């Protein structure tokens, strides 16, 4: 089986298609393409445990981050505050359905599914319960990564705060802190999750 050893011991750069020998990495190292410099993959330290921890923390934070009011304003004795869910219901009330759907998907649905996907896969690998359905789950992870926009939403909140502070009395609520922590977990997950090792693990276990 000459072909078999080629596909297992080589890797092709996804940016320039150069065929390279599969590098052997130590924990914390990155493999870069020698031809174009794109990152091929990296080996993460204690990836499974860390990903489980970050994903659980992120999922727990989702409730306060979406339900608690983020910021509020007061003027002339009137007061109003809004949470992320309020933002979306308001968009539906004002019949901006496309916008409501987009905001819901990019800030709630996709980030949640992304955390659940990562948790489910790392959990199954940790406890040696690997089944073919995991392939379908993990295949979607890459797509979910592209469409997670919590970081942009957070910057949006910051810009709004700056804007509002000049218009009225602005208050910061618990939702903002939860949102910061959630963003931290969501970002950390891209750092802790080791996609290359997970694929390798799935392949090894399902072959047997």
């Amino acid at each position, binding site marked *: 089986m000459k072909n078999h050893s080629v596909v297992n011991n080589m890797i092709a750069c996804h940016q320039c298609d150069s065929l390279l020998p599969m590098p052997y990495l130590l924990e914390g190292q990155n493999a870069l393409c020698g031809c174009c410099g794109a990152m091929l993959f990296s080996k993460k330290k204690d990836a499974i445990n860390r990903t489980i921890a970050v994903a659980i923390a992120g999922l727990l934070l989702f409730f306060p981050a979406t339900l608690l009011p983020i910021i509020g304003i007061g*003027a002339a004795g009137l007061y109003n505050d809004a949470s992320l869910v309020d933002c979306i219901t308001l968009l539906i009330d004002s019949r*901006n359905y496309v916008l409501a759907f987009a905001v819901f998907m990019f800030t709630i649905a996709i980030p949640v599914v992304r955390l659940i996907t990562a948790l489910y896969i790392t959990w199954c690998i940790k406890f040696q319960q690997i089944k073919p359905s995991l392939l379908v789950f993990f295949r979607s992870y890459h797509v979910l990564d592209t469409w997670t926009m919590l970081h942009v939403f957070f910057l949006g909140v910051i810009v709004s705060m700056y804007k509002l502070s000049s218009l009225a009395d602005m208050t910061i609520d618990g939702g903002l802190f939860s949102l910061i922590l959630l963003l931290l977990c969501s970002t950390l997950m891209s750092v802790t999750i080791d996609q290359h090792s997970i694929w390798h693990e799935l392949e090894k276990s399902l072959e047997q």
Partner: protein
Amino acid sequence: MSNKALAAGLGSCPKCHKLNVMHASRQVCSRCLTLFSARKPKSIEYTLAWTIAALVMFIPANIYPMMVFYTFGKPEASTILEGIAIFIQMGMLPVAVIIFIASFVVPLGKIIGLFTLMYNTKRKTQLTLKQQGQLYHIVEFLGPWSMLDVFVVTVMAAVVNLGFLSSIEPAVGITYFTLMVVFTIFAAESFDPRLLWDNHQKHNHQSLSEKTYKNTDVLHHDK
């Protein structure tokens, strides 16, 4: 010239990056069972279609107002550029710059970048491969950041809701703007960067063979 997987009859899976021996133009990855091709099929056609769709959406996104600001029941609508002008008038230059970059420079730059990349897969260009790779990275990275203004308007509309005193409502322009951002992300996703390297290799081969052809021509004439 380095080895290319395509030339060796191999293809790497777009989802799990596993190397596969290609038996057909479209086949299932041996590791993750994704159906894939050695190159994204009709990559340029899809990228072009999404980019044009984004460009079309860019027009109403800038003509129609993004939000309407009601003070004491009096509506005041503002488009992207008008909103930025208001910021400058209020002396909030940093915010004006951020919004201008995120909602005007970045989307337009992305569309121009995508057209440049598509052109580079077909023709010989002045850009080096490294620059083309960087351009692709920038276009890919910038994708979600253009949504900034959409989120700002969303948050503002939800928070500034003090009845008759003052309130903000999102207007139709923002829907077009959201669609434009989504379309540019689809366009970047459809683009296959390996086509840039394929094109480079093809042109280098061509110019080499052209030179040898000319040389033999000269020899013939000499005879």
